[in-house]
């Protein structure tokens, strides 16, 4: 017997309302936020035009440190983009039910950080006007070309991976948007109609969608791994001390997953707070994600050990100079802060149950994300400052590097761009996969039904047994269990 008080339809309606609510209202704070982001982007564009006209000489990069903040940020953004794959694809493949409310934000983070990660090397180009040469004269021997191929493939893949589960939700948005008075509403209606690609929710459509989802889930994982592997190859394929390492591929992948999953947690925390999704993104989600981040941090720490301890034991000449600088030289403060503060500390915090509260996890993840960014910088810059040939009699600004205002402005604009796209997206589309959450409800409902039925059968069997024993009639009423929305 099903609990009469529990109304599945009503529950589903509540989910839909909760998810669609943020798309209906563009509050004052949203407008200010978007305005601030636009100012940052505008300033970044101005700086970029300045850089285009005057050359990369307006940055702090010089001949020794010829890759700086831009390339570090590129590696960082590409790293963050691994979040979507991990949380979404891996949790989908392992049929983790709790993934349902968080997949959308993870996939979005992938999409956006890839978009801006891909822009970073173009900003770093001396001659962006000759970008077409990559198509005309492209050489597949170049790790940079592998990057381009692999990032394009991942970008298309992650866009599809984001879009596929959005189709039923967009169709829902389309159907719910009945009153189109303002021009903006008309635009939205048009956008939803176009993007829903004629979704009607027929059996065939559901079948096709689920099949496509399964294929994408499988294919996106190797693609994601390939992306960060070849990103590491632009460094590892050189002979430079610190980069000339066979562990660099997995090291970068692990670093990407570690920073990316921390990024997902930050996204979860933000949407949970801003769009009042506490009911769906629960403490349990944070706890589970915290465990995942802990596992990934441990893997990352392990690879860190390999990356530094093996050459440090040998102290080969050129590698030794670099390591000396990292361990007790000019980069030592930064290096040890990163090792202790952003690797060891998160492990300690996340491994104790009390550390896995929403607040603590969020703080840890902020540390991890910033630490990952700075770590990219520490991977890129010190190696460039330790060439095989000694640095002698060069202009003073060649032998040091710290990003200047142009680089910070442009990188800041890219970060603002990421926030802007996420904000606009969340104001147009539901930030939770509604149908997936609904599916979760249905599954839970069915499970409860099954439990009910089993309990009832067991009870009736018991009654029969008792009747057989006693020859008495026993009440068959079973105390019903109220299904929760999602297990929490």
């Amino acid at each position, binding site marked *: 017997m099903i609990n009469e008080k529990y109304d599945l339809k009503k529950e589903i309606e509540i989910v839909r309302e909760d998810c669609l609510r943020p798309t209906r209202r563009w509050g004052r704070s949203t407008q200010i936020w978007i305005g601030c982001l636009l100012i940052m982007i505008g300033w970044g564009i101005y700086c970029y035009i300045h850089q285009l006209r*005057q*050359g*990369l*000489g*307006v940055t702090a*990069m*010089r*001949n*020794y440190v*010829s*890759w700086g903040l831009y390339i570090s940020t590129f590696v960082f953004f590409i790293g963050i983009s691994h979040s979507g794959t991990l949380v979404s694809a891996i949790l989908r493949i392992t049929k983790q039910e709790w993934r349902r409310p968080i997949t959308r934000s993870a996939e979005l983070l992938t999409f956006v950080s890839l978009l801006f990660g891909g822009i970073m*090397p173009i900003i*770093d*180009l*001396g*001659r*962006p006007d*000759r*970008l077409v*040469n*990559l198509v*005309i*004269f*492209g*050489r597949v*021997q*170049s*790790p*940079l*070309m592998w990057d*381009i191929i692999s990032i394009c493939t991942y970008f298309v893949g992650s866009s599809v991976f984001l879009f596929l589960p959005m189709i039923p939700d967009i169709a829902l948005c389309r159907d719910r948007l009945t009153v189109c008075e303002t021009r903006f509403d008309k635009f939205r209606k048009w956008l939803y109609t176009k993007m829903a690609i004629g979704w009607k929710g027929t059996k065939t459509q559901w079948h096709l969608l689920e099949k496509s989802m399964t294929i994408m889930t499988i294919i996106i994982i190797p693609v994601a791994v390939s992306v960060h592997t070849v990103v590491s190859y*632009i*460094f590892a*394929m*050189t*002979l*430079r001390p610190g980069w000339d390492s066979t562990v660099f591929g997995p090291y970068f992948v692990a670093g990407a997953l570690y920073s990316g999953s921390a990024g997902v947690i930050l996204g979860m925390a933000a949407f949970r707070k801003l769009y009042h999704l506490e009911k769906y993104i629960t403490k349990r989600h944070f706890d589970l994600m915290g465990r995942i981040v802990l596992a990934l941090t441990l893997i990352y720490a392990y690879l860190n050990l390999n990356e530094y301890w093996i050459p440090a034991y040998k102290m*080969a*000449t*050129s590698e030794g*100079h670099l390591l000396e*600088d990292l361990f007790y*030289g000019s980069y030592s403060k930064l290096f040890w802060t990163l090792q202790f503060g952003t690797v060891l500390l998160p492990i300690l915090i996340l491994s104790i149950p009390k550390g896995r509260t929403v607040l603590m996890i969020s703080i840890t993840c902020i540390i991890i994300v910033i630490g990952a960014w700075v770590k990219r910088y520490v991977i890129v810059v010190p190696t*460039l400052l*330790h*060439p*095989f*040939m*000694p*640095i*002698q*009699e*060069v*202009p*003073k600004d*060649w*032998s040091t590097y710290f990003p200047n205002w142009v680089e910070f402005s442009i990188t800041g604009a890219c970060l603002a761009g990421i926030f802007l796209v996420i904000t606009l997206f969340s104001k147009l589309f539901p930030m939770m996969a509604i149908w997936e959450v609904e599916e979760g409800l249905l599954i839970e409902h069915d499970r409860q039904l099954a439990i009910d039925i089993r309990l009832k059968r067991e009870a009736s069997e018991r009654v029969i047994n008792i009747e057989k024993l006693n020859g008495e009639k026993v009440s068959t009423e079973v105390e019903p269990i109220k299904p929760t929305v999602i297990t929490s």
Partner: protein
Amino acid sequence: MNDDLNKSRRNFIKKASLAAGITLAAGAIGIEKFLSAKSVPKKKTLVLTPDGKVYQANCGELKEFNPPPVSNLEARKGIPNKKFVMVIDEAKCDGCKACTEACQSMHFIESDREWIKVFKMQDSESTSPYFFPKPCFHCDNPPCTKVCPVNATFKRQDGIVLIDNERCIGCRSCMVACPYSTRFFNWSHPKADQIAETGNMQYSPELSLPRRMGTVEKCDFCPDMIRKGLLPACVSGCAMDAIYFGDQNEDAVTNASGVTVKFSQLLEDNAGYRHLEDLGTEPRVYYLPPKNRKYPKPDMNASGKELNQTEMKMGDMRMSE
């Protein structure tokens, strides 16, 4: 043999015989054959041979020859059947930087960068310091051309590694890939005086001029000079005769005084080596160790005073190898 030409001679040659030059190898042989045949020329003209000598030759015997700069395609192929090689004798180098100066003025290089740079090296604390002029090594297993995504830097059949700055997208992969810090990036527009001097030149990868903002440049072994049969600027500019240059296929290298020696013999007699051999880049530049030095060794404690805005980083003085 290494006399320069005076002004009037240059003008005369320009007018009379630029079009009547001869192709490098075949042409030279043609001339020699003609001379040894001792036929009496009827209509004579002056010709310039690849080694820079003037002959009077019969007009009929000469082939047409395109004056440099050569086409982009030709510049990418290089000179067939040649393998250019450089030998630098550390025992003869006194660190005077005449090579650098000759190179700088030849290629109109801005003062902050040096295509051939004279390092003061000391391999370890107890070993003797020495001067180490370092051009581009034009490696046979070049890490730089491997990573170029657009084939803007390339390895020619004569061994020279060049850059096409009309194709370079400025990604600087080659700069980080080069273990010898040989490559330089044009971070800003060339200076006004540079534009005035080189702006009207017709670009060729062999000329490396005019330079362009946002592209990479480096030592090019002066391929335009080689095509004329002349030594690269640093070689002819070395007053100490410390730098030899030649064709490995001919097994001969020549220094500024015109002394031509057998390449293999030179390496054998002086225990020639290549810098950082264990990197496996197979440089085309060989070094002779600083044995029996005639000049004082470099003072490793003196800081560079030559450039105003410079600073020596003493922490990096010790070198691998």
